[in-house]
């Protein structure tokens, strides 16, 4: 009997699933050593089949996606019970990822915006409901929670694998490790370890030349003349999240001429990725009085979005005040 493997998506985009498929032929190693017990992207096992599985009967579950609805929460708890090893896979499960930016707004504001777009025709003011009556009976939708949460804010997580998505060479390395463990040739690292990633920041993997930073002007990428492909992007005045972001991705984006946007989450030992960015940027910009400093900072028109792009839900504050207020009223 091969041990069981599962992969599940909560509030997610499917990119983690594609990244797993992008390990190419190595997916056959997965197949040779595991029985895939549950993977809605690729096979037809349904929720009712998971409910009747024995506790701890799945050896390892890769759980991606954030906890946005009551269904996501239910599946997180269900899969925690059914799985010996639960991995928070990808940025959404680990720190909330880009959908975590919804935590900047209250549900009411979001709600009022949703059904009033230029192409929406809704004169009756209809809203989706958790329980809707139709002619034949009742239809249910899972309740929407006011604040998006990460997997480890809902259940105990055994390992963390960051990335949006985790790069396929890292996934391949982790699959190799899992196969070795199953074959009794290796041991898993201590619980709580961040796997499939580096122990430093993206800057360390980036081949661009870094020198002394004295940034007197920050511009946006569309304003830039052709950028020097060999020089650090920050030093050229383009915001880059490399200093605050965990390594492991081979700094692909800076190598392609685009700034790091922070998708591998907080650098090791940083409690708050946004705070780490703030301190890093403040250390290297010019300005000795309020006016001069403000002029440089005006080049970052959206600091919350830029610094917390992937990690707002896992940051120290986690959400805006108005979003939190709705949790209290719930």
């Amino acid at each position, binding site marked *: 009997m091969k041990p069981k493997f599962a992969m599940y998506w909560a509030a997610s985009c499917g990119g983690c699933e594609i990244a797993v498929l992008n390990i190419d032929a190595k997916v056959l190693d997965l197949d040779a050593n595991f029985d895939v017990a549950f993977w809605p992207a690729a096979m037809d096992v349904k929720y009712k089949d998971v409910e009747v599985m024995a*506790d*701890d009967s799945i050896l390892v579950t890769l759980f991606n996606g954030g906890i946005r609805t009551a269904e996501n929460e239910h599946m997180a*708890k269900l899969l*925690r*019970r059914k*799985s010996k090893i639960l991995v928070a896979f990808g940025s959404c499960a680990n720190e909330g990822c880009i959908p975590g930016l919804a935590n*900047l707004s209250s549900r009411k504001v979001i709600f009022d915006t949703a059904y009033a777009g230029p192409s929406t025709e809704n004169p009756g003011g209809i809203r989706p409901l958790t329980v809707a009556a139709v002619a034949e009976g009742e239809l249910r939708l899972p309740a929407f929670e006011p604040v998006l*949460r990460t997997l*480890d*804010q*809902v*259940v*105990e997580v055994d390992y963390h694998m960051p990335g949006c998505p985790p790069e396929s060479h890292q996934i391949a390395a982790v699959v190799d490790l899992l196969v070795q463990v199953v074959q009794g040739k290796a041991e898993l690292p201590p619980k709580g370890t961040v796997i499939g990633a580096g122990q430093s920041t993206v800057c360390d993997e980036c081949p661009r030349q870094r020198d002394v930073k004295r940034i007197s002007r920050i511009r946006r990428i569309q304003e830039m003349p052709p950028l020097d492909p060999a020089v650090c992007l920050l030093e050229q005045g383009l915001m880059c999240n490399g200093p605050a972001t965990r390594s492991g991705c081979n700094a692909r984006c800076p190598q392609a001429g685009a700034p790091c946007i922070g998708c591998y989450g907080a650098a090791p030992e*940083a*409690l*708050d990725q*946004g*705070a*780490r960015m*703030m*301190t890093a*940027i*403040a*250390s290297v*910009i010019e*300005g*000795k*009085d*309020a006016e001069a*400093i*403000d002029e440089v*900072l005006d080049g*970052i028109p*959206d*600091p*919350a*979005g830029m*610094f917390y792009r992937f990690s707002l839900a896992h*940051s*120290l*504050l*986690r*959400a*805006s*005040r*108005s979003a*939190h207020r709705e*949790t*209290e009223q719930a």
Partner: protein
Amino acid sequence: MANDFEPVIIGFTCNWCSYRAADVAGTTRLKYAPNVRLIRLMCSGRIDPTFVLKALADGADGVLITGCHPGDCHYLEQNYKAMRRHRLLQRTLAQLGIEPERVHLTWASAAEGAMLAQTIDRFVEQVRGLGPLRWPARPRPAAPAAGHAEAAEAAQVEEAAS
């Protein structure tokens, strides 16, 4: 109607100027509001925005940062970094719905004990006017027991009890 809310304020002071100013205020028995809990760092440039955010997330209603006057930093230029971090932090806090005035940066030389006492009093009143922040605690999963089954059971018992 009197506002009886007593703000909780964390004060990060630098060792060289502003901590000594606070000391002077104390030894000259100047009265000032007791709401500020002082934490001494070697330099205002040591202030990581993480400290401020953690203070606010863990129950502080305001944060006061004090350092040496620009040009007088014991480590030459690090108080400029404090200024830059402070201004960037304020912009970010505003987007999160936290009044930027809750995080105040002020300069004080070692001789300015009285001025610092006044600054503290003013800041406490300002935060009192803003009201309590009361940031919600971080959600945590059910306390991990020896096995997952026990943890699930514990969670169920908790749910039933609440």
